[in-house]
């Protein structure tokens, strides 16, 4: 007869273990909650930053400035070269006159007063609408390289798409990711250590009980499972706390976005997969730490 322990028995015993040292359990749960909340915050920031960068990449404009003396054939050649690139959505050509008119519109009227038409700069321009898939700084570099190859053309004076700004944004995201990873690692490690220590104390305090259980014929699984569930319960509390904290933050942020409407953040501040991981994360961390502790200290 090899039946598993009854779930209600295991849960009750695990709950009694938690209750026997409520402060330790609380500290363990809090550190797990803190670690997970931090993961959540960084995930939020990074998720939205990369959304933003993707959006930027989808509506990117590359401007190719041609020399004033460029001939129509030169312009056509550059245009043809540009079109060979993947991700080009549209190409607009502005003659020198059209460019001048546009620049005129851009300048304030009082500045234009008494100004000679010819003094306003104007040169043939090709505006390229790009749909670039910007995932990392390397993608910006690839685009930059192509931009450079355009600049190498004789009739092209300059070509640019704001690469520097994009690089800076990516650098910020990378720094945030590194800080997030390090902090998460440190906090998760300390959370695991807290759970590990709590379970170890639990095992020591139940030394006699463990011996008795073994003597009356309990299997090692039967003896161990309540301690593992104790770890899972601590993790679950941590997860729920973290979820609560992130939920509040989420509401705050959504409110803020509604106020400052120009921010182009997606309505789901967290990817759904991440939410699942945050909820599962606590119990998993608790289980892992408890398993290490039980494996080391619970000998039957």
């Amino acid at each position, binding site marked *: *007869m*090899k*039946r*598993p*322990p*009854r779930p*209600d*028995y295991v849960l009750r015993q695990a709950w*009694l273990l938690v209750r026997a040292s409520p402060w330790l359990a609380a500290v363990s749960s809090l550190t797990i909650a803190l670690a997970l909340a931090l993961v959540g915050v960084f995930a939020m920031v990074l998720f939205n930053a990369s959304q933003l960068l993707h959006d930027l990449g989808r509506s990117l404009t590359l401007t190719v400035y041609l020399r004033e003396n460029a001939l129509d054939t030169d312009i056509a050649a550059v245009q043809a070269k540009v079109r060979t690139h993947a991700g080009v959505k549209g190409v607009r050509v502005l003659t020198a006159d059209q460019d001048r008119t546009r620049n005129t519109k851009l300048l304030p009227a009082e500045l234009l007063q008494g100004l000679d038409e010819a003094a306003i700069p104007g040169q043939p321009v090709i505006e390229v609408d790009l749909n670039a898939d910007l995932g990392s700084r390397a993608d910006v570099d690839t685009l930059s390289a192509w931009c450079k190859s355009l600049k190498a053309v004789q009739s092209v004076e300059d070509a640019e798409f704001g690469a520097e700004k994009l690089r800076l944004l990516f650098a910020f995201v990378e720094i945030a990711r590194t800080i997030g990873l390090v902090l998460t690692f440190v906090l998760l490690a300390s959370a695991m250590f807290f759970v590990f220590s709590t379970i170890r104390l639990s095992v020591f305090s139940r030394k*006699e*009980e463990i*011996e*008795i*259980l*073994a*003597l*009356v*014929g*309990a*299997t*090692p699984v*039967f003896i161990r499972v309540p301690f593992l569930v104790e770890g899972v319960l601590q993790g679950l509390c941590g997860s729920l706390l973290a979820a609560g904290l992130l939920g509040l933050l989420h509401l705050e942020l959504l409110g803020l976005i509604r106020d400052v409407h120009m921010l182009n953040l997606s309505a789901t501040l967290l990817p759904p997969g991440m939410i699942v991981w945050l909820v599962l994360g606590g119990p998993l961390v608790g289980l892992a730490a408890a398993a290490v502790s039980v494996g080391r200290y619970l000998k039957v």
Partner: protein
Amino acid sequence: MIQLYHVSKRYPNGCDALNDVTLRIREGEFVFLTGASGAGKSTLLRLLLVMERATEGQILIGGRNIHVLRDSSVPFLRRNIGVVFQDFRLIKNRTVFENVAIALEIMGLGRKEIERRVNQLLEGLRLIQRAHSPVTDLSGGEQQRVAIARALVNEPAILLADEPTGNLDPELGHDIMQLLIDINRRGTTVAVATHDAYMIEHYGLRTLVLHKGKLLEDRPRVSVRPGQDVRPPPSPLVYGSPLAMQPPVAAAESSLASAADPDAVEAP
């Protein structure tokens, strides 16, 4: 039921606790295990429970050689052997009910079934009123009855007791002994380690005498029916209790069962 062939036990510190012991305890028998302190009584019981492994020799329980028993099978062997200690070994922060129920919880039985069986037994042992008290609130004699209830609740074929009366005053000790004898009358093989010479004399049951790890003497049961004069009738403790109406199921079902032993202590 229990057979030892040239069993020796040397502890890691070099102490020879048992030395070439050969003996046989038949199903349904009641034996005392006696000898001076350090003679090896507890060691013998520990070997039967596989709390220790014999250094040499073979031990058969219900025909199974426990020398070759895998560690993972030990819990299942222990479920067929109830055990009672001098210091009771109850779980301190649990109630009487929970302490007895644990022997069934480990088998994964359902809540209802456990309640039924534990309450029935506690009733028979006059412990039902204390069922939901913490065990530490009970007197020594009551605690030992709880320990016996735990040992019996899954109806094992064998009951081992290591100085079960050692911590009790003589009167309570007598009660406990009477209970063990009643249990034996219902078919359970019982072995009791004790150095209480008076007790051994009083009951006149088969007695194995150990001396410095050797089996010195195997005194058979006093052949004149001792129950008539020496022993009082079955105590009201368990008489008429559910135990009396049901033969030990575990003994009947388990692989440990074999032919009934003629030497069993008969009810008068």
